[in-house]
């Protein structure tokens, strides 16, 4: 068996998660050693754990003292941007081990049994080969290709499964194709139940940012996530989806076309093995990967208690920049964003606001329309009748009903309908739902 297969085996033992794996790797050198260890040797692992717990049990103080210490060391660790030097492979595990000593994770005798029972070479080899058939790559934490950015987060995933058509030899090596080795990345998060405004802004911003070569990372969920991926794909940019289920499962199913497109022009990333079902508790966990892989997080529409804010919290812990698209006061869906801006997130009203932070020598392009009038500059390209201009002028990003348009413009209904149809056929406006119109972004 190859080393990768040993790692694959270790990552997929039932009831053994990243914390127990770290504990095992602390004692044994590599997965191969664990695989070949006798039961007696494995049982010894229980002892240091027991000692640790004995040392901790008499009083609560030592554990309390340890925990802030660990956090302190994390806080003192160099910022991601500053540490450009490649870290030796052994380092993360040491860092892991030190942070681990603060946690009370114990191996149970059942875990030892699980380890022994799962030592089926044929099955492991077969499963590992099955990954390649599905076009999924396995990258473990000690692999040179494992993203440095991710090693720096609090609890990095032990392994990543990546589905994507890498490498595209003629353009770049496959490491370059992954979000962590290429140019910078922007995470785009937001509500699943987005408004037309949110959908439009997401597509527009994601597209404009992706056009500059920045990868767009999101979660393939409904709403903002979907529009972020679509926006990036529409300009031929790269986009990556981090899933809360196996990389071979498309969830939600209606995004299947998007899922396929992303695995062509970007990558599907997951810390869960293929076949893992999208259960709800996986989703907050994957947020740490979304934020961990990115260089900045853009929040477009988030309610007061939106899941997107979990990503933001994790991003803040990881030292990422937060960008937020403002909404109107009182809009339920923009409450979270406005609160973020209030507490210091960067207000984004045009793609430049993000690009100038992410790219070192980005020059603002004044010729381009900025957000305030990009809608207006398109209208001048069309020869519209006066009535058409009147109708157009009373539309915004929020869908407006036909009756309201008629009342606002003072034009009779029939005229409004005719002008709206013309505008729609010219692609200037969209009919979001029946008889509700808004500007096209």
């Amino acid at each position: 068996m190859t080393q990768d297969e040993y790692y694959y085996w270790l990552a997929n033992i039932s009831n053994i998660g990243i914390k127990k794996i770290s504990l095992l790797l602390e004692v044994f050198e590599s997965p191969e050693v664990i695989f070949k260890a006798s039961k007696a040797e494995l049982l010894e692992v229980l002892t240091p754990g027991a000692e640790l717990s004995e040392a901790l049990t008499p009083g609560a103080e030592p554990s309390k003292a340890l925990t802030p210490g660990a956090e302190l060391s994390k806080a003192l660790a160099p910022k991601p941007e500053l540490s450009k030097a490649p870290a030796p492979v052994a380092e993360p595990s040491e860092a892991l081990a030190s942070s681990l000593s603060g946690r009370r994770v114990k191996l149970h005798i059942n875990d030892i049994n699980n380890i022994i029972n799962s030592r089926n070479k044929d099955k492991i080899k077969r499963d590992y080969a099955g990954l390649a058939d599905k076009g999924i790559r396995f990258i473990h934490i000690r692999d040179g290709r494992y993203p440095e950015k991710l090693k720096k987060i609090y609890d990095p995933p032990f392994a990543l499964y990546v589905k994507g058509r890498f490498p595209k030899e003629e353009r770049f090596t496959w490491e370059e194709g992954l979000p962590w080795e290429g140019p910078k990345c922007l995470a785009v998060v937001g509500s699943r139940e987005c408004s037309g405004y949110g959908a439009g802004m997401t597509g527009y911003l994601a597209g404009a940012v992706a056009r500059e070569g920045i990868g767009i990372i999101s979660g393939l969920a409904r709403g903002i996530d979907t529009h972020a991926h679509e926006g990036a794909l529409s300009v031929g940019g790269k986009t990556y989806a981090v899933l809360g289920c196996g990389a071979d499962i498309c969830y939600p199913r209606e995004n299947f076309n998007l899922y396929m497109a992303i695995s062509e022009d970007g990558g599907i990333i997951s810390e869960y093995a293929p076949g893992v079902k999208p259960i709800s508790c996986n989703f907050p966990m994957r947020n740490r990967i979304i934020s961990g892989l990115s260089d900045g997080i853009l929040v477009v529409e988030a309610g007061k208690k939106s899941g997107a804010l979990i990503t933001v919290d994790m991003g803040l812990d990881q030292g990422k920049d937060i960008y937020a698209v403002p909404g109107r006061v009182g809009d339920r869906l923009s409450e979270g964003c406005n609160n973020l801006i209030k507490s210091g997130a960067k207000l984004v009203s045009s793609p430049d606001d993000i690009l100038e932070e992410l790219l070192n020598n980005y020059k603002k392009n004044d010729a381009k329309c900025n957000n305030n009038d990009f809608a207006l500059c398109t209208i001048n390209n069309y020869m519209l009748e006066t009535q058409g201009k009147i109708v157009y002028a009373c539309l915004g990003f929020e869908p407006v009903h036909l009756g309201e348009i008629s009342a606002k413009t003072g034009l009779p209904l029939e005229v409004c309908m005719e002008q709206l149809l013309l505008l729609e056929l010219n692609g200037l406006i969209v009919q979001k739902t029946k008889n509700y119109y808004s500007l096209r972004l």
Partner: protein
Amino acid sequence: MFSKAFSAAIHGIDALIVSVEADVSDGLPLFDMVGYLGSEVKEARERVRIAIKNSGFMLPAKRITVNLSPADIRKEGTAFDLPVALAILAAFGYIDEEKLKDCLIIGELSLNGNIHRVNGVLPIVYSAKQQGFSRCIVPKENAREGAAVAGIKTYGAECLKDAMDIINDSSYADCESVNLEELFAAGSGEDADYSEVAGQDAAKRAIEVAVAGMHNILMIGPPGAGKTMLAKRIPTIMPALSFDESMEISKIYSISGLLDNRALITRRPFRSPHHTITPAALTGGGMTPKPGEISLAHLGVLFLDEFPEFNKSTIEILRQPLEDKYVTISRLNATFRYPAGFMLCAAMNPCRCGYYPDRNRCTCSVNSVAKYLGRISRPLLDRFDICTEVLQVDYKELQSDGKAETSADIRRRLHTARDIQERRYKDQCIRFNSQLTPRTIKQYCRLGDSERMLLEQAFNRMGLSARTYHRILKVARTIADLDGCESIGRKHISEAICYRVMDKYWGGGCGNDAG
């Protein structure tokens, strides 16, 4: 002694003449009734015997046999009590049998000899006239129904004795009469009016177009926006009923026992069944079929509020009657055909909470919106030519006084459109634009070059289906008729496209079309 009286049974929406034969002969005292009788008709035996006794006639101990013919059609209902009693009395010689010959008799007897109301008097009297009877004796409570039929004398009898007086005394002048002109004049005074609905101009216009061409209409809007109010007023802008139409509807109501001693139905029906209605109640049914809500809405409006809440199997039944304008109900004994030429008006919320697409108020997920709308099947949706959004009314509009159009104003406008259609289709078997088929659409909905271009552009850009295309043309035809235009113009097409039922609404995407 043998005698014979005439009565009638309801069969579908028509009446069938039944002769009631009675024979009195010597033998063991016995009262027997034959002729494929339902149990309520068999029970007439006791009612008749006691009613005769209590009306002061002596029934000698003889063998009485009553036969209802034709004997192969099942008789049901209580309307045979009175003719049976009169036939027996004639057989005993209390009545001159000759006088029963031109007289049709219906009515239920109570034990003291009083006559109670029965259902279906109008179609029975109508049939009697066609069969050449000159007199009808009906319960007093139903007398006005019968009186609406001209050319036959209808007498209302309160008790058995009354009925005998009417028969014996051919000069009995007190026959029931109804002044039809007065009735129709009184009937057109509506109590609801469109001027009471504040704002909602877009929805009103859509309804106007729908009524003009008898298109089915679907209204979508938040709760409390006034969908029900708008729908209830649809009959007020429909053209007044003609006498023939009124007779057609009144017959159905008479059979269902809903005429309530009004002589005729003079207003367009408006039926709004609750969404818990069963399939049989909607289309008609039962062991002896009765007309359902769709037949009661004939020539009027069937309003289905909270459309997605209806049982799926119930509303799917509407598909065939909507096409054929009648409903056929088959039973073991017979097949009945009830008219169902109604205009369907349905109202629904856009989602469970009702506020989609207002994202500040709507708390539904995209999925649940799609699921809610998905309760209505595509084929049924295809029966709606017009779909309109009803908006929440704001306070300003509620307060604005009196500028709104009255129903009479709208009806006047509609009149032209209806006239044009009547003239256009006078050689055809159709009456309204909504009944156009793809072949006749080609004939009557010719487009100019510029119109064709517009429609082609819309077809390609909006991804319309062939069916949608035809519906747009039909509605455009109606809009042009409302304008009094012979040819369909660009604005007519634009408006028709605005009214189409959007596929996207049913795709459930919130702006997936952006970008």
